[in-house]
């Protein structure tokens, strides 16, 4: 019963290419939705386990994208290694943010927002490395592995499904390990957790690193899928906003919530919102986000989970 939503999402993930495999528009949408899903998962990991709200995940996304694109184009690194390097680059730039961990809630959120701005300005100004606002293109696409062309829509889709599932598995493993237990205790009372000998700051640092790594990986994937980068796109605030809305909508305290939320929110934004309001369609996302926080801060899956635990309690009694 508990794994029903997971199986449902998996079934949808498998059904989509079978039903729409030939339709490159739908597959393109799904690929982008999966990118958002990966970032949303990383954001939720930081929010749920680390207890930190980030408005600056676009920084990790952009750094991952540029690192991978530059390494593969200018230094001839094979694309799979470049993707990994992109993720590591994002993790490395999160190291620069570690001092911000000393700050509590709102201060951390704003410090990371400032970081995102800094990285965007740096990418725009460092024209010799990034090509500046003129953009950066001509870097290799995803390779063909075992007969499956990963740069095709279907290939990218399959790879992304595997990656998102992998990240969800890592998230679950961390959550269930003793690190996860310590982090949950920390959310209740950070001081009490410190007293029993947990290095709270270190654990938070690991969560930030892991979250940045995953975000960078998806940023790099996205770069090689669309094969074009410019600072305004790679560091766009959308890469911070969409994952937040996806995670909140689906339920950022669950693992499946951000994934399902990303698919729903991204499709809503692209198909419905952009159709209604070609300019300023993000206003609908804002309304959605505000509404969720006010009405159901635990998100769709959060409500579902709460109901089932209540039901279980009733059954036990």
């Amino acid at each position: 019963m508990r794994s029903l939503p997971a199986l449902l999402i998996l079934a949808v993930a498998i059904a989509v290419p079978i039903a729409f495999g030939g339709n490159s528009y739908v597959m393109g949408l799904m690929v982008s939705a999966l990118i958002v899903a990966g970032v949303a998962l990383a954001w939720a990991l930081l929010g749920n386990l680390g207890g930190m709200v980030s408005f600056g995940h676009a920084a990790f996304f952009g750094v991952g994208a540029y690192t991978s694109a530059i390494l593969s184009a200018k230094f001839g690194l094979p694309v799979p290694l470049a993707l990994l390097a992109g993720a590591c680059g994002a993790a490395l730039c999160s190291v620069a943010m570690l001092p911000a961990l000393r700050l509590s809630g709102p201060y951390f959120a704003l410090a990371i927002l400032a970081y995102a701005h800094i990285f965007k300005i740096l990418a725009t100004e460092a024209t010799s490395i990034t090509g500046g606002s003129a953009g950066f293109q001509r870097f290799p696409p995803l390779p063909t592995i075992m007969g499956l062309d990963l740069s095709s829509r279907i290939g990218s889709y399959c790879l992304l499904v595997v990656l998102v599932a992998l990240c969800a598995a890592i998230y679950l493993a961390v959550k269930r390990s003793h690190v996860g237990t310590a982090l949950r205790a920390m959310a209740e009372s950070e001081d009490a957790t410190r007293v029993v000998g947990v290095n709270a700051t270190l654990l938070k640092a690991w969560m930030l690193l892991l979250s940045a790594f995953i975000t960078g990986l998806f940023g790099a994937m996205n770069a090689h899928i669309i094969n074009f980068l410019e600072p305004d796109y790679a560091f766009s605030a959308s890469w911070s906003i969409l994952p937040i809305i996806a995670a909140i909508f689906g339920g950022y305290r669950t693992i499946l919530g951000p994934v399902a939320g990303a698919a729903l929110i991204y499709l809503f934004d692209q198909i419905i919102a952009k159709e209604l309001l070609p300019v300023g369609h993000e206003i609908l996302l804002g309304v959605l986000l505000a509404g969720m926080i006010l009405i159901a801060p635990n998100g769709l899956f959060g409500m579902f989970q709460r109901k089932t635990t209540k039901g279980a309690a009733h059954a036990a009694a």
Partner: protein
Amino acid sequence: MLELLQQSLFSGLLVGSVYALVALGIALTFGAMKIINLAHGELVLLAAYMAYVIESRTGWNPYAAIPLAFAVTGIVSVVIYLLIERIREHRELNSLILTFAIGIILTNAILLVFASDVRSTGSPFLQDAVSFGSVYAMKGEITAFIISLAVMAGLWWWLKHSWYGRAVRAVSSNRDAAKLMGIDPRRVELAAFIVAGILASVAGVALYTMSVVQPALGPGLTIKAFIVTVLAGVGSIPGVFCAALLLGVTEAMTVTLASSALQELVGMVLFLLVLFFMPNGLFGARTRRG
């Protein structure tokens, strides 16, 4: 070169006074509710667009828009307060996300109504240049500076001498003790949000008269205001004022000495340096925010 530096010092001081008004609005609501209103920059922007509406429709001086601007920002500010009030769990973080969402809504609403064009005042009086020795300024900048100072003096008096102002300070320093003294924190918080709305309306109109506005400006304003509050440390109006002038001058100097693209970067680097090395701010209050 020396004249250029003098000029950027002077311009920086003038623009800094408006940053101070924006920052005081954020500091006031943060003090009363321990909540950072991420939509405050958008409130300021909303007021700036009201000035644009009045000027373009009637041809009056943009400062005539202050009552309208205040009505709009005041209402939006109260709505923001009422919405924050409804949050029950994880208030600190959820309210941050909520005001972030309201910021997105306001930015895009402005974009929908006024389009993405850059607007600035067309008033010949405000655009007229005046010289002070070797430095120049637009009359609009001087007016904005004087009005900002006056509003800050008014705020200082309000916090020091009026019942509500003192209640805001009481709730900021110790909420529980203030409750025991018979202060209803909800009314005080509401008062803080309304006064923040007044500050935002004046700041917005001043911004419109001395600079250019566009819909994407909001988050940048919020960040600048937040930078100022961090530089200043918790508490005093003079501290916020000095920090705001410092930010204004630093930005102006960067534009003169390096490039305008680096303007925002320098502000953020300054912010991070202070955050990491002097967490109590330059004009330090005693409490740590750790």
